[in-house]
């Protein structure tokens, strides 16, 4: 039985090694690609319509009433314009719900998944050019 377990672990270890290059992109991203954080009642402080990335700055209060400052990145204007965004989609003071993939390193930064405005309008981030990897564009 012990030898079978050893064989299993050897095979599994071998497969993991073979598979590693395929997942290389995931391992190098700055963000937790398996975790979407949802933040409600966030307040926009600034929206930067910029190349190669648009940047959303917003504040969120925790359960103790402390304000945390966050930054979320989205695709380029060329990419997210196709999804209904424009330079004035978000303005300081807007109250929104934000979904984002947070940084692996506990900083208040993330790649946006979507933003929902007070009127229910949903603005999604651009699809990733590499179909699933959180790339830059």
């Amino acid at each position, binding site marked *: 039985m012990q030898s*079978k377990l050893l*064989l*299993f672990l050897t*095979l*599994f270890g071998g*497969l*993991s090694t073979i*598979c590693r290059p395929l*997942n*290389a*992109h*995931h391992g*190098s*991203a*700055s*963000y937790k*690609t*398996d975790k*979407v954080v949802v933040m409600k009642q966030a307040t926009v402080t600034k929206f*930067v319509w*910029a*190349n*190669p*990335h648009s*940047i959303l*700055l917003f504040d969120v209060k925790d359960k103790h009433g402390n304000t945390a400052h966050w*930054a*979320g*990145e989205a695709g*380029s*204007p*060329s*990419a997210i*314009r*196709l*999804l209904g965004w424009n330079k004035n989609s978000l303005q300081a003071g807007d109250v929104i719900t934000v979904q984002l*993939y947070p*940084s*692996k*390193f506990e*900083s*208040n*930064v*993330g790649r946006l*998944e*979507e933003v929902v405005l007070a009127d229910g309008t949903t603005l*999604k*981030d*651009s*699809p*990733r*050019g*590499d179909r*699933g*990897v*959180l*790339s*830059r*564009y």
Partner: protein
Amino acid sequence: MRNLFQCCVVSLAGALVASSLAFAQSSPKPNFGGPEDLYEKLGDTGSGGPTPRRDLTGFWAGKVAAKLNAVPSMTPWGQEQFRLHKSNGEYPVADSNDPIKGCDPLGFPRNMLFMTRGIVFTTMPGKTIEMSEYNRIWREIWTDGRELPKNVGGRSADAPDPRWYGYSVGHWEGDYTFVVNTVGSDERTWLDNAGHPHSIELRVEERYTRVNHNHLEVTIKIDDPKAYTQPFVITKSEFTWIPEQDFEEELCVPSEQAEYLKLVAEPAAHSKSK
């Protein structure tokens, strides 16, 4: 022996199942908001009518990034350059040394492999001009029969300097294929997003075939004996005629990129050695 074989099969199957489960858990949810570029949004536009003869003039939509073939073995020089390149795919943006991190030019041929959402062709006497939506750059493709320069980057006084977008000449093969040959691309540019290098010896052949009014195909062949052990076709990509003959302004703006690095990329990153 039979038991051992059965164990192998069961273990392999188990490992594959475990592997796929792990992958499913670590993948982001596939929540794509819509088309990733105008090419995808336009979809099937049909042939668009008769194919113009010896004419690529107009605005064309392409993919954000061309699908690339694997590169062949690199020479020792190529391997060393590649080792020094820290790509955005492998490293957090803040830790990479991709030239475009600071909005440096993509250069040629990388500009035909990445950020290819839009290209434009027009003609002038003796030359075809090819322009890109990204950073609004252009290339002159001489069609007056001149030869390519032979000593780009040489030390003699008459040697042309390397250029971000090289030196190009073009000619028609038949009525529907425009062939462009380019030399002299600056070695500071990367071949692709993975950080594969090229040398000043790089020679590139692009073959633009107008399939019909609405569709254009381009095949790009790389020949760089200093960096690669053999020539290779790096991509065959497609472009679609843009009905409105217009596209977005898309510039990498250094001040905006600096703000992005400060507010997002650097806080999100960590350092690691290659």
